[in-house]
């Protein structure tokens, strides 16, 4: 079977022996998680010839919908919330159980326990439960009217309505991608907005300080009251439980009526607590074929993982387990897992995913290929920050590991090849619109835990049995609580 990998990462199979003769007989497949990964897995199962019973379980009451527009065109009021439903690319003939959460997994009896008491049998299980928004650390404050998180379509609908009503001042807590996109929408709507970011720049967790400095400047040019190296100490409400004020670590007290908590995501693994899988806050560990590991480091043969909730060995990482919150990974890993679920072992394929993500904010399109977070250096290779159009390349120990294109998506495919080839850093490009001399600088990523929230892409340890690195003692409290400022760090 020949597989063509195009420059833009798409696979096309140009010749194939018949797939239908080579899958094993499986009667029941259950997918827990009815969002992007769950849906694409279901389609891939049918594409790969699975004809048995298929069940999709989702804790939200909606058909699968897409999340990226929730912090962009839906929030801005352009796209109606019910116009985000994902297309089904083929018939899947599935039993849908929506609006019911999975609360337990009985591996011995091959059953998923649902919140309504039902037990769902499976021959193969796909865990695709994704993530949820990290709530504000103080529960009372989080319950104030005017405090929002943003992950589900309900969240987006409520927040969008509130923003459309013209709040006096919005506070965004956390300057990652979601926080920055929300701040961008607020400015589009003409709303005063303060963005409090614990690190030295916005987007420092995903893109590093050198790149983050550029985005900080643009945010301010757009009128965002950007506070870096600053945390929110407390949110205060009035007697009717409405949000009124925020106290910042720089001493400022803001009169605000809306706060959006954008502190990253928590992986939905609690329902697996008693299942004795290698599952913790970093996600569910699996091998390269997406089969889940148990807590002893043995691979299961009937439980698979895909999407935001997974951590798996990525070749780019030399065997380290990678976990990402990437749309592209949800799609690709779902297909890989589905294929591997129903084929004979000799036809399994490894999950090979080149990380890629995008964001649209403050009038610019941001795209990245590879994993910037492991880089030590960054260099501008094309364009300029002043013209709001550039490409920058990330290097780790003299090898290219990622590229960042701002308002220049057409330039990115060339760098994908360099990343896959682990080409030397800095690259020799002589691009027509490149600087006369390449000047690499420190990429400026912060030590683990120093950002406000868990990053959208992380290396999570060399093997399934590697325990979580928990900072201990007073460091633990300091790093885990987003209200505690870290102070500017020299790098």
């Amino acid at each position: 079977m020949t597989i063509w990998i195009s420059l833009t990462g798409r696979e096309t199979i140009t010749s194939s022996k018949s797939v239908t003769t080579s899958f094993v007989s499986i009667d029941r497949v259950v997918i827990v998680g009815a969002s992007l990964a769950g849906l694409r897995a279901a389609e891939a199962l049918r594409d790969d010839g699975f004809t048995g019973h298929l069940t999709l379980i989702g804790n939200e009451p909606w058909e699968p919908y897409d999340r990226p527009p929730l912090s962009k065109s839906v929030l801005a009021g352009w796209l109606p919330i019910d116009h985000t439903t994902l297309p089904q690319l083929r018939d899947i003939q599935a039993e849908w159980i929506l609006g019911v959460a999975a609360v337990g997994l009985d591996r011995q009896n091959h059953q998923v326990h649902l919140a309504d008491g039902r037990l769902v049998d499976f021959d193969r299980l796909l865990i695709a439960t994704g993530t949820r928004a990290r709530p504000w650390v103080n529960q009372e404050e989080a319950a104030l009217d005017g405090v929002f998180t943003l992950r589900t379509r309900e969240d987006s609908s409520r927040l969008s309505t509130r923003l459309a009503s013209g709040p006096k001042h919005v506070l965004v807590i956390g300057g990652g991608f979601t926080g920055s996109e929300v701040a961008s929408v607020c400015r589009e709507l003409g709303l005063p907005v303060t963005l409090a970011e614990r690190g030295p720049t916005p987007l420092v967790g995903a893109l590093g300080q050198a790149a983050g400095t550029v985005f900080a400047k643009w945010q301010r040019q757009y009128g965002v009251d950007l506070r870096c190296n600053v945390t929110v100490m407390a949110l205060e409400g009035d007697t009717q439980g409405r949000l009124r004020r925020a106290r910042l670590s720089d001493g400022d007290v803001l009169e605000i009526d809306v706060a959006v908590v954008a502190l990253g995501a928590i992986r939905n693994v609690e329902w697996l607590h008693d299942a004795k899988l290698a599952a913790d806050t970093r996600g569910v560990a699996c091998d390269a074929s997406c089969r889940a590991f148990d807590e002893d480091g043995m691979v299961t043969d009937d439980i698979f993982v895909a999407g935001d909730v997974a951590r798996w060995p990525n070749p780019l990482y030399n065997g380290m387990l990678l976990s990402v919150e990437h749309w592209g990974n949800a799609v690709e890993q779902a297909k890989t897992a589905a294929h591997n679920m129903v084929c004979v072992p000799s036809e399994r394929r490894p999950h090979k995913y080149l990380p890629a993500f995008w964001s649209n904010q403050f009038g610019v399109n941001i795209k990245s290929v590879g994993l910037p977070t492991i880089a030590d250096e960054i260099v501008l290779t094309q364009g300029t920050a002043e013209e709001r159009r550039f490409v920058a390349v990330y290097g780790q120990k003299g090898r290219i590991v990622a590229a960042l294109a701002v308002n220049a998506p057409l330039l990115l495919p060339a760098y994908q090849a360099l990343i896959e080839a682990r080409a030397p850093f800095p690259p020799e490009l002589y691009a027509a619109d490149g600087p006369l001399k390449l000047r690499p600088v420190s990429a400026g990523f912060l030590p683990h835990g120093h950002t406000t929230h868990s990053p959208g892409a992380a290396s999570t340890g060399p093997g399934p049995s590697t325990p979580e690195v928990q900072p201990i003692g007073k460091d633990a409290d300091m790093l885990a609580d987003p209200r505690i400022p870290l102070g500017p760090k020299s790098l």
Partner: protein
Amino acid sequence: MTQRYPHNKLFEEILDPANRHNPYPLYAQLRETPISQQEDGTYVVSTYREIEALLYDPRISSDQRKSTRGPPLKFRVRQREPEGSLPFVFLDPPDHNRLRRVVMHQFTPERVEGMRDYVIPLVDELLDAQRNRSQLDIVDDFAHPLPVRVISKMLGLPLEDRSRFEVWVSALVRTLEPPQNVSGEAEVEQRASQAAMQMKEYLRGLVTIRRDRPGDDLISALVVSTSHEDAGQMNEQEILASLQLLTLAGYETTVNSITNGVLTLLRNLDVLARLQRNPDMVIRTVEEVLRYEPPVQYLTRTTLTDINIADVTIPKGATVVLLLASGNRDPARFPDPDHFDPDRIDNEHFGFGRGIHYCVGAPLARMETHIALNALVRRLVNPRLVADPPPYRELASLRGPQHLAVTFDSLSD
């Protein structure tokens, strides 16, 4: 059996007019070596993967003035224009980006979609003129006049002057081709220089008129925008160069997508019949025509530094030919590539190029070709080719039949 040629002479054979009607076996031979250095020093790239990689590669330049190793005689840049007035298709970033952006600000979806109500009746008018005939020349009677009128209308070029434009355009477009011999080159140069000068003078006059009294055409829009929201982004020389480019493209490319489309349909009557039954199929059919018989067969580039690709090092300043039509037939990319299959799903062809120079006019070309092919297929009853292969135009890069004689029983409404 196709004759085999030494690898380093294959491009010369491809340029030979005798092979114009079917260069595809030669492309297949070339693809045995993805990057093939020709006798005259040109590097010809014929495989899909390598063409795509180079179209995106920042080390590749569209500015032939950077061809410092001294390209072969036939591709040498004609230094007849003062600095700064090369059209943006022959420029690199940042100048390319600046100029293309100004043009794209006016070449909007609204403007293109607005042409639909002009194209549809025009297509029928051109066909109505064939009533009471039993044979037409697709090129002269249809595929050539249609885009000429469309681009004239869009730009605001007076139709009554189109015969002057025909002369200028055909003189200029010949400079994209290598001359057959050295003395021929001098003559081609001379006529092209004259044409360029005259065309620019004409356009300059038109620009002046529109500046005083802007209309709703594209020239007026460009003139107005470069005085206002895009002030300082495009000087007059650059406006003229851009207009010259758009005119040339409008005259010389869509004619071939339409003609190549008709020719391919008449060679595949089963597809033609399906298209008659299901006009919406024209969308996929046109994409497959763009793959199968693209109007632009190759692009020329140079290199800003040495490039290692497919075990070959293309030196800095070399002349590189990207053989798009060959990439479109690469079996490593397209299963059964020599089969014309409108149902082909994975059809990422090079019909409009790739990368930052992707054809500006593609949306307009698609619209015209969709409407044209649907109308022809609907209205010509029992169309048949008179001669296969038809006579071809001289150009190897902008490739298409010179005439395409088609007989038909009658014309329906």
